[in-house]
């Protein structure tokens, strides 16, 4: 079974990377511009998982036999691969979750909730995905504390002055996205972390949209919590990561109760293991864990710098090309932008845009992108959104432009 990395992936052949994604072989005309929703999957990562399931499958931890041992080793090895991928030698900073949403909710419940007291506040921003907004909103409602929502300016950049004012000694957490999944805005997270840490406030970074092409290292960035999903980094659904800075590890309570996370159970009482193992209640998603670590290996093989460069080229090219269609309005013109562009076509609702472009084989999203507060602030009901990954090309953007022009002509 030599599925894995059959074709050599490296920094010189990012141009050929599309061949690693079988969907483009079976559907050569597919123009997939929805990678912000989920990435397509390379052969090697899917094979890493299915190889495990077909030939190496066993439950972990408590097995003495070879199959179970190897499975346990692969599982814990995956944890150290992810830790290294995030700039840490300590694999005990890394917990496996169901995805970004679950990871954020765990921080809300296992870390933040027990320490909230009246007079506290939580700082987040208006551009967050619902996953990084509703959990804080709900906590604030439950405890009657203040949710401080940093607005954006007319370009789609965070109002940093406001952010600075919002963070005070009663702030229990700053939760902010690295890249907006609707506008593509790249937020200055290093600055935000510095501002928050100056007031001794911990920071959660939602890296769902940046993990595959930005260097993210706890050593350099010094964030307190980092969250992201496998399926937005070429890996599988149903698995995500919560990385927790060493200084907070002791404060992380379990989420669920069950096997795997316990030390001792009597009829009267139970003692739990420490983070990250206290989050492994029940059989973990072992093949998902293997998949997400294979994804980290895949990304490192391609090189995040190359990926980012590729995405930036595509983004600026698309911004240029779309600007030449007068009936289009680009939504947001942030200082720095990567991989994601929202736009609207005059008189044509985003859903109609998506339906017509679909007939030309172009896959894009229309709607609110799980960012209703953002759209409300911008006075918009919906946008059409394109988003890129490593397999996209400039030719696809040309096809998009062609299709849009045709639609606009048809509509008028």
């Amino acid at each position, binding site marked *: 079974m030599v599925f894995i990395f059959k074709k050599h992936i490296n920094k010189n052949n990012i141009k050929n990377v599309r061949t690693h994604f079988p969907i483009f072989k079976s559907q050569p005309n597919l123009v997939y511009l929805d990678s912000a929703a989920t990435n397509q999957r390379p052969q090697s990562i899917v094979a890493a998982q299915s190889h495990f399931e077909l030939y190496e499958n066993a439950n972990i931890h408590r097995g003495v036999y070879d199959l179970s041992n190897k499975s346990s080793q692969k599982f814990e090895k995956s944890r150290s691969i992810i830790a290294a991928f995030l700039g840490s030698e300590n694999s005990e900073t890394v917990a496996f979750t169901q995805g970004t949403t679950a990871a954020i909710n765990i921080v809300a419940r296992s870390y933040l909730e027990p320490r909230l007291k009246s007079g506290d506040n939580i700082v987040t921003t208006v551009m967050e995905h619902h996953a990084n907004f509703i959990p804080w909103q709900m906590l604030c409602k439950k405890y009657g504390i203040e949710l401080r929502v940093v607005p954006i300016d007319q370009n789609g950049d965070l109002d940093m002055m406001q952010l600075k004012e919002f963070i005070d000694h009663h702030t229990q957490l700053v939760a902010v996205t690295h890249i907006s999944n609707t506008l593509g805005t790249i937020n200055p997270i290093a600055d935000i972390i510095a501002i928050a840490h100056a007031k001794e406030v911990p920071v959660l970074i939602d890296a769902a949209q940046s993990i595959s092409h930005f260097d993210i290292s706890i050593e350099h960035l010094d964030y307190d919590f980092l969250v992201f999903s496998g399926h937005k980094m070429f890996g599988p659904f149903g698995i995500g990561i919560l990385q927790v800075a060493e200084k907070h590890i002791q404060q992380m309570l379990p989420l669920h109760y069950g096997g795997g996370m316990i030390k001792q159970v009597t009829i009267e009482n139970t003692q739990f293991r420490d983070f990250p193992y206290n989050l492994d209640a029940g059989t973990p998603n072992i093949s998902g864990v293997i998949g997400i670590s294979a994804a980290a290996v895949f990304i490192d093989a391609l090189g995040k710098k190359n990926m980012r460069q590729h995405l930036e080229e595509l983004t600026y090219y698309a911004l240029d090309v779309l600007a030449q269609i007068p009936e289009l309005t680009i939504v947001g013109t942030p200082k720095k932008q990567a991989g994601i562009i929202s736009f609207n076509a005059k008189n044509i*609702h*985003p*859903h*109609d845009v*998506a339906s017509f472009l679909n*007939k030309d084989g172009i896959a894009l999203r*229309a709607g609110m992108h799980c960012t*209703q507060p953002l*759209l409300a602030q911008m006075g918009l*009901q919906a946008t059409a959104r394109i988003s890129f990954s490593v397999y996209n090309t400039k030719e696809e953007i040309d096809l998009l432009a062609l299709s849009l022009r045709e639609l606009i002509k048809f509509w008028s």
Partner: protein
Amino acid sequence: MTKDDLQKLYKSKILPENEHPYHFQEIKSFDFQIEAYNPMCGDKYWLFFEQHGNQISNVFFHGFGCALSKASLSLLCKSLEGMPHKDAIELSRQFVQCLTTDLNFEFKKESLNTLAELKHFEGRVDCIKLGWEAVCNHFENYEN
């Protein structure tokens, strides 16, 4: 549906209705109003009903949404006007059923039949049924 079919359909039925929607205006005095909102995509309309006794006399609508939802609401207004509540509910239910199940009905209004055929226009059925479903829900919750 091919691209060609889609274009024909829009050209002949949807776009005219979308560009010149029937009773598309916000009115201030009405007997009751219904919100039709799809949180997944952001389409949001208000339907304003005027009635005499149990008879719907006028329906207006206003809001924001795609060509399909707007065209469908325009047809809804035209269809329900003049109907007793009972018939309006019945028609709305049939229309929603038609879009979401294997059942087929023959509607008097040809344009409703055209719309109903779009049940296989995947990903957009929600747009078409938006207003009709709101009407059903309203009467289920408030009238019965």
